[in-house]
């Protein structure tokens, strides 16, 4: 994601605060749709499609990461299928509401996750931190976000090393035996703690005093504000009016 964020497209040059606000507005409006809404949500697919195209962000790594949260979305969706026993009328047909609810959930939250990943891949964690500080999010919280992001890779490395060491001495047995779970988790926690202490010491050595300095101030330009206005206007229109139905009716009227 950090490599993608160093891209050089028009989207990458948009002020990080605008990218952040557009993503927040997008997520808020998409999640505000009713539980059976599918067709009215479809215009919102345009946003990620356009951002993918303009920012030249490869689709594969974004979808791969989106897949990580897919089981969670599917899990919530399945609850909707089980517990939502209502009936939905679609045209002249009658359908079981649970499945509509499921499809709507997957569509909406899938789009939100992809938009968040696109935001990260076009501005990176440092510019996100900068945007958060601009809207007066306390520096302690911003710092927590930054350090958590840094430590994810540290924890990942420690887990990989510990699991590799276990596997080398487990003589081809699959998985990790339940008796080893306790010591392994303990080891990983201790080693991660030690590693994070070393990183913190390295930060202190270089004058870290609890304040994060992201570098030069990024100046807001007219194009940044235009970007925000354009997308917010589109999202609000798409939220208020059922654009696919209106478009369908208009085409049907002409024909």
């Amino acid at each position, binding site marked *: 994601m*950090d*490599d993608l*964020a*160093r891209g050089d497209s028009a989207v990458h040059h948009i002020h990080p605060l605008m990218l952040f606000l557009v993503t927040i507005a997008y997520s808020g409006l998409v999640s505000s749709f009713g539980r059976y809404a599918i067709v009215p949500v479809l215009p919102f697919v345009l946003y990620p499609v356009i951002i993918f195209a303009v920012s030249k962000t490869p689709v594969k790594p974004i979808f791969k990461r989106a897949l990580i949260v897919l089981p969670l979305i599917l899990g919530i969706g399945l609850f909707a299928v089980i517990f939502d026993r209502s009936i939905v009328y679609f045209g002249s047909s009658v359908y079981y509401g649970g499945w509509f609810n499921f499809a709507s959930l997957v569509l909406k939250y899938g789009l939100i996750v992809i938009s968040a990943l696109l935001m990260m891949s076009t501005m*990176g*964690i*440092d510019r996100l931190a900068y945007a958060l500080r601009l809207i007066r999010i306390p520096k302690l919280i911003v710092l927590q976000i930054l350090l958590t992001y*840094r430590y994810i*890779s540290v924890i990942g*490395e420690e887990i990989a090393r510990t699991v590799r060491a276990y596997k080398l001495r487990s003589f081809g047995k699959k998985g990790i035996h339940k008796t080893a779970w306790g010591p392994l988790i303990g080891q990983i926690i201790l080693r991660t703690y030690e*590693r994070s202490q*070393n*990183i913190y*010491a*390295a*930060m*202190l*050595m*270089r*004058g*870290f*005093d609890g*304040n994060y*300095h992201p*570098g*030069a101030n990024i100046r807001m330009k007219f194009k940044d504000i235009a970007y925000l206005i354009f997308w917010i206007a589109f999202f609000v229109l798409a939220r208020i009016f059922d654009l696919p139905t209106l478009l369908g009716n208009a085409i049907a009227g002409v024909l």
Partner: protein
Amino acid sequence: MSHHITEVKNLKYSYPGGKEAVSDISFRILHGESVGIIGANGAGKSTLLLLLMGILTPQSGEVVIGEVKMTKKTIPSIRQRIGMVFQDPNNQLFMTSVYDDVAFGPRNSGIGEDEVAQRVAHALEQVGIEHLGDRAPYHLSEGEKRAASIATVLSMQPDILVMDEPTSSLDPQSRRRFIKLIKEFKHTRIITSHDLDMVYDTCERIIVLKDGLVAADGAAKDILSDEKLLGECGLELPLSMQGCPKCDADI
């Protein structure tokens, strides 16, 4: 040049478990000196460096950098004058790009972004990795990581460079490049290592630690050729001083 003197007086430190890592260490390092601190595992080298940087607080004794005694109040200003290169460069590279990592220290010191850019460019150039500025640190090779971690310290323009096992995990050519680089620096250098050949190549003075005490302190050529002393301290002669096994066999 008394402001660049590093002085350690009767330093003592025990870890919370009770293990005494540093028993009583004193030395004085002058401006521009290149000093190797050697010793077997557990001799107290790494603890000494942590005390020198103010990461650990000694139970007794003091560290004086220039004319400033290290206290909680003076630690921030002292850390601006000492740059420490960690044994594991992964601990030192925590930003998303090499540039941001090298800029981390200067930005914390509050200087303008133009000067930060100049310092970063100069530091990257000094270690020969100006082409890696935009790369993510975790994508670099070990040699490149080591160079980047040195650049993160050089950009702070320290008076004193402290390095903990700087050649560990470097391949022979990267190690050779590193030795050449270190020899070019004019800073005061304090290097701890088990790589005695590197220490011999880069340091004119050696301090040998044993069980938390200074076992010897003198010229590198004298100490590193003293087989008896090195043996008593759990060390061996540097390979370059052990003679050629093939020639010895021929004789």
